[in-house]
């Protein structure tokens, strides 16, 4: 191995059983076991992941006239509409929290999720020129497009802090516990994004389905209303179905940690996590199986 140019890439590709100093060996085979996820490969290409996220963030704010202002405006406008419709008109209960706060806190993870889901689904198709010409673990593409949403999220988080100040709402000591729920939202989006992005390569219809999916999904998630309002309507024996939607757990978790509303049941949370895990592992396996021929299909 050449040593004049020590490179992070070179060191990490070496399989574990090869002594350092030996040339790295890449084996190309017509068949691979389905469980060969090659996550190590992903780690090797972490710098590319960073650059792809960096590119998307940079381009995103460069090409829009309002730039980062969109990250603020979108959830604020949605909050306004939902507060008027559900809070003022329908007079739904708000768990003793100002209705705008109740909605906005839920919109934070929801918008991240919807963005990540949409972007990751389209990610392979929008990056097809890369797929056709360069090798890298294809997983990087949907992962990077999911991560791009974090920048908007961070901006909206600042707005939330401002709103809490305005309403004189003291943040809960548990506030930082929103992080695991954030992770759950990201993993949910990624899990579904893996399935859909691979499907989207084969069937371009997927792209057109996504807006409907996110719309209906949001209505099924307690974003514009509190979980309490729904659970009153659902007989207890059917509540686990409600928990199958991982975003219920995410949204409730956010409200619980930041606003101190009543937490959902642990059972529901458990069901959510299992659902996410199943979708994610399935998505990974499906994606890995399909990725070997992405370049032929795009």
């Amino acid at each position: 191995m050449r040593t004049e140019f020590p490179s992070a890439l070179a060191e990490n590709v070496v399989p574990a059983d090869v002594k350092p100093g030996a040339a790295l060996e890449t084996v190309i085979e017509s068949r691979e076991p389905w469980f060969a996820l090659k996550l190590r490969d992903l780690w090797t290409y972490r710098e590319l992941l960073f650059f792809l996220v960096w590119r998307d963030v940079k381009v995103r704010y460069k090409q829009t006239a309002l730039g980062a202002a969109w990250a603020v405006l979108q959830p604020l406008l949605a909050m306004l509409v939902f507060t008027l419709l559900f809070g003022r008109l329908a007079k739904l209960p708000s768990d003793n929290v100002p209705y705008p706060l109740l909605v906005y806190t839920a919109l934070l993870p929801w918008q991240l999720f919807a963005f990540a889901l949409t972007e990751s689904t389209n990610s392979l198709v929008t990056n097809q020129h890369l797929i056709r010409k360069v090798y890298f673990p294809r997983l990087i593409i949907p992962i990077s497009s999911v991560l791009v949403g974090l920048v908007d999220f961070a901006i909206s988080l600042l707005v939330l802090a401002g709103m809490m100040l305005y309403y004189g709402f003291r943040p809960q000591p548990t506030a930082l516990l929103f992080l695991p729920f954030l992770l759950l939202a990201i993993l949910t989006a990624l899990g579904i994004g893996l399935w859909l992005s691979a499907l989207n390569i084969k069937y371009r219809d997927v792209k057109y389905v996504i807006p409907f999916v996110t719309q209906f999904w949001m209505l099924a998630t307690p974003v514009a209303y509190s979980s309490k309002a729904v659970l009153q309507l659902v007989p207890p024996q059917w509540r686990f179905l409600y928990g199958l939607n991982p975003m219920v757990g995410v949204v409730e978790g956010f409200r619980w940690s930041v606003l101190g509303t009543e937490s959902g049941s642990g059972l529901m949370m458990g069901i959510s996590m299992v659902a996410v895990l199943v979708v994610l592992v399935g998505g990974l396996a499906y994606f890995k199986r399909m990725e070997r021929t992405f370049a032929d299909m795009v």
Partner: protein
Amino acid sequence: MSALAISAEHIGKMYEIGATAGYKTFRESITETMTAPLRWAKGQRAVAATEPFWALRDVSMEVKQGDVVGILGRNGAGKSTLLKVLSRITAPTTGRAVLRGRMGSLLEVGTGFHPELTGRDNIQLNGSILGMSRTDIKKHFDEIVAFAEVEKFLDTPVKNYSSGMYMRLAFAVAAHLDPEILVIDEVLAVGDTAFQKKCLSKMDSVAKEGRTVLFVSHNMGAISALCTTGLLLHQGQVVTSGPIQDVIRRYSSMGDLSSSTHWTGNCGDKNARLRETWVRSLDPDGSFDTAADLEVGVRLDVLQPIEGLIIGIRLFSQYEYELAYMLHDDSESSSPDTVMPGEVVRRFIIPGNMLAAGNYRIGLDIGIHLVKKIAGDKDEGALMFELENLRGVGRRFPVPAMRGFTSLFRPAWPVV
């Protein structure tokens, strides 16, 4: 240094070609599934909506460390597919290959360039996409900028670059890639002459550093100057491999494998007989280059006076699209000339720089205006030829589609 850098065994790559190749819509999939029982009932089991096409078949090769290998073959011989498989862009259908060393592939310059980003940003992005680490990029940054000669425009979005600057920057990044195995496809055909020379000498120094290089190009001069060994592919299979000069000689002797540029025969009716057709390049060396003027010739024996004799040729693309129809004259049909018995020879010139590289077929249309067809309906006198872009100009943006060329007209590029 005699260890193997690449050893490939029985590599095969199959594509599904046909109406439904590539991506589908749900509608197509659903209708296919729905109509399946119907077709089955009709006894047409498993319609061949797609047919297998082997772009590579049983390709085995061994490349020693430090070898510079030129890969030769006509359009569609499988060169690019081989590079794609070896650089792990697509998985082979059969076979196995082992690569020893860090692999970098350049199947295109400027992969991943984003027009909105500045030159500086694109160097980092593109470098990373090509597999350079951040420290490598930082280290080579100034060299790259100097090589590309774009110092003044580093903070300008590349969408405002001239195409020359754009390609220079793209190549500069690629040239500073530092892998142990380098795979290069057709990337030298960029920029002006001076820049091409610079690229060639850079390639030469890369080769002399003892790196392993796989190189596909139509530029025979570059191949014979840079490469030590060669591999000749034809229809997805290895024809020969060995010292580069032998392989080049074999390649140029392959000549008319996929074309029939001359036809002789005797068909027609009592009015006229079609005897000979040909297509040839008017280039001094007679090569079927995209820049060459082509002559299509037709020889007829006219047996009795014919009023309104039609001699026409049709030009078809490889996929049987009719691209053009030409007549030997365009006189008013109301006052057609009468052709007297004897030999009639007509020549059609297809100007150079009109057709893109690819395979073409010429069909004949011999007849009497408004009366009858004499010959040409059953492919009598049909010709086939393949145009290649041998001079390397105008191949800046290779067409990605499997269906070959996309244009009928190509501009006359300044010839270097």
